[in-house]
């Protein structure tokens, strides 16, 4: 909740700094000193004996009767006060506690693929095409395997990555690891996640040591969470019949909410997902329906009360991903109010939603554009220079249409440029093309404005979005600019976009990939998949790689200043 978030901001202690200082040698000396001490008792011991037992605490003895009476009264008051909120209002069901299991504690192992234990290898910087934004992005060639990133503080980041038997599409997932960095991605440690856990949601971290992910555990739908930075995990089964968590958001250390559904449509959008939340690490869940007829697929909560969900309309069907739906709750899921995307702006299973606060959200959605084919397409049967058929799309609003026309020109221009350059590769389309666009909202998602993207980003496909403030947002993905890396010719490039004016203008980050960069299966620089920006001017992004690739490129933005780590 907002109040809770603000309260955390007045915490005088930076937990990351404390974690760092706690690794100082003096702590080892203190431990040795303590253990060397004699077993002699001292007079103060009685005070501390069994501190968890009330009978040893005199003030509780003195007031035990009064407290017992008060407890009954408070329980009644508490139930009156909490049930409507915690219960999520009309239609919400609080599920009985389910049995959770906790894994044994594991020590972190440094991820040392390079000499000295550091995993990163700096390779120059990225620069921004436009001078709208400050700072420089650092590019690291080696990071942990590609996965889901989450950065709960300006220095601490986690990556949840799977290890696959091979790069084949159907290769089995062997295990999942949690990678931890306390220096915004420079060095990493690795911790095992429960064997048998298969994530189905992204990783969400509500605190520096508190993270969670939805998935299945030996086939059972679960929420896996940690409160000690990944050294141990609690595996909490979801309530029966609620399906599996597809999207998860944890705005505070103790509260997580997700979208849970029993199945998905042909476009991998979960069907009729329900809003599932927990305030106790998965011991109990509150299950609340969202809006009938809508299939929500991505969720962002800025507090325990304020959440926004986006998805698609069941009425439109799975074939049309250009007609999105959105809903907002201000009471933790009890009551949902439908918002409106501009017509022609849709949501696909790749769409990401990020809310900097209760009011300011951005979403990576889908719009349809018409791209002229390369002249070379004329030689192919059934394909001319102008596509003739169109996929199912929703009629575009004037704002979406303006962006669609602009993006069509940008894409066509790039294709013609490519054809003139004599490039050996070209692509042909038989209909309209679906690209990504970003829309911004300043009222929690009730209404949205589509944002114009830069002219040097043809056919953007965005899969990562993170908005640390109401003005600053970063988006990651790919575009259709061809790129040569070593001997590998890519039809597209990785893309990072940023805005510092709430989406009115976006700038592209440019970079070059060294020819000797690790590039497993030639897939490491096709796209950037995940991005996490814990505060203004601090971001970490990770390249999408082949699924068995041992490492992924990392991109970090740290602008020196009061918000950057010391």
């Amino acid at each position, binding site marked *: 909740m907002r109040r809770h978030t603000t309260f955390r901001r007045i*915490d005088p202690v930076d937990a990351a700094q404390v974690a760092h200082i706690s690794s100082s040698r003096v702590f080892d000396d203190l431990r040795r000193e303590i253990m060397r001490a004699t077993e002699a008792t001292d007079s103060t011991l009685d005070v501390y004996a069994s501190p968890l037992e009330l009978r040893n605490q005199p003030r509780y003895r003195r007031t035990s009767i009064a407290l017992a009476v008060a407890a009954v009264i408070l329980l009644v008051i508490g139930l009156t006060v909490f049930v409507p909120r915690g219960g999520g209002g009309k239609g919400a069901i609080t599920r009985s506690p389910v049995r959770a299991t906790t894994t044994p504690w594991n020590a972190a192992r440094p991820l040392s693929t390079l000499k000295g234990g550091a995993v990163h290898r700096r390779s120059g910087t990225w620069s921004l095409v436009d001078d709208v934004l400050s700072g420089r992005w650092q590019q690291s060639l080696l990071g942990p395997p590609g996965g889901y990133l989450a950065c709960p503080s300006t220095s601490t980041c986690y990556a949840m990555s799977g290890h696959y038997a091979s790069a084949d599409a159907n290769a089995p997932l062997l295990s999942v690891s949690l990678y931890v960095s306390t220096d915004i991605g420079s060095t990493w440690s690795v911790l095992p996640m429960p064997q048998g856990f298969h994530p189905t949601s992204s990783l969400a971290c509500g605190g520096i040591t508190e993270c969670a992910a939805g998935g299945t555990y030996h086939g059972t739908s679960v929420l896996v969470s940690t409160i000690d930075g990944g050294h141990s995990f609690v595996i909490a089964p979801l309530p029966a019949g609620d399906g599996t968590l597809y999207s998860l958001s944890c705005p505070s250390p103790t509260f997580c909410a997700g979208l849970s559904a029993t199945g998905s449509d042909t476009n991998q959008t979960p069907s009729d997902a329900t809003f599932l939340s927990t305030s106790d*690490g998965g011991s109990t869940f509150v299950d609340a329906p969202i809006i009938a007829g809508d299939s929500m697929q991505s969720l962002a909560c800025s507090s325990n009360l304020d959440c926004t969900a986006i998805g698609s309309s069941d009425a439109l069907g799975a074939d049309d991903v250009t007609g999105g739906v959105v809903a907002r709750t201000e009471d933790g899921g009890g009551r949902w109010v439908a918002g409106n995307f501009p017509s022609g702006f849709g949501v696909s299973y790749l769409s990401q939603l990020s809310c900097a606060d209760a009011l300011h959200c951005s979403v990576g959605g889908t719009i349809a554009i018409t791209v002229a084919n390369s002249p070379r397409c004329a030689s192919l049967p059934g394909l001319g220079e102008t596509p003739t058929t169109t996929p199912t799309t929703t009629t575009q609003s004037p704002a979406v249409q303006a962006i669609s026309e602009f993006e069509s020109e940008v894409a066509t221009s790039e294709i013609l440029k490519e054809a003139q350059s004599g490039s050996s590769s070209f692509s042909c389309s038989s209909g309209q093309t679906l690209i990504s666009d970003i829309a911004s909202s300043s009222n929690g998602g009730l209404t949205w404005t589509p944002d114009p993207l830069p002219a040097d980003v043809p056919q953007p496909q965005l899969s990562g979005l993170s908005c640390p403030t109401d003005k600053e947002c970063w988006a990651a993905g790919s575009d259709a600019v061809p790129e040569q890396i070593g001997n590998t010719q890519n039809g597209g490039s990785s893309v990072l976009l940023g805005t510092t004016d709430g989406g009115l203008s976006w700038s592209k980050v440019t970079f070059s990939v060294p020819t000797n960069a690790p590039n497993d299966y030639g897939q490491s620089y096709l796209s950037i998949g995940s991005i996490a920006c814990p505060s203004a001017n601090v971001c970490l992004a990770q390249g999408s790689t082949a699924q068995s690739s041992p490492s992924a490129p990392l991109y970090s933005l740290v602008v020196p200043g009061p918000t950057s780590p010391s």
Partner: protein
Amino acid sequence: MSEAREDRFCELYELSRPKIVAYALRRAASRDDAADIVAETFEIAWRRLADVATGEAGLLWLYVTARFVLANHGRRVRRRDEVTVRLAEELRGLELREEAPDAKSVVMRLCLNSLTPDERELLMLAGWEGLNAAQMGRVLGCSPTAARIRLHRARARLTSEMADFAAAEKRPGRVGHIQVRGTATSTSPQEVRRQ
């Protein structure tokens, strides 16, 4: 002493020391006091290891112990050894966020100080230590329900204090009036920030 006992203490110590250091820093009057509280808390844990629960409950046990150590800290003079002095020096190198980041946070910090110690402790355990109701209940020696209700009331009190402060700010010719550490202070958030 058995190897198993040593291993157990080492594990507890490794797992919980950042949290106990943070707990002490948030509440102690000085870094020296924080170092004392950390050292004494773990000394007690070592001596009473048989009483310390395993797993998460071990950390809660340490919070309870640290709480009592803190409460009793002013009543007696602790014998400071060389390691504790070094620990205090190490903690002095830590940058605490003494200044709140914005006006609202300044007011919240002031209002937090105007609450009762128990209310403050609840809010800090929930907001800063990140404990849930059940965990707070164990630390404070009450049921999870009681902890939840007390936390709700503490939050309401904090909100009310902040609303009162804001209302006083808006009144023409008046400035907010708030009790800070036993001293009546009349000030506005902007003035507080400059202090």
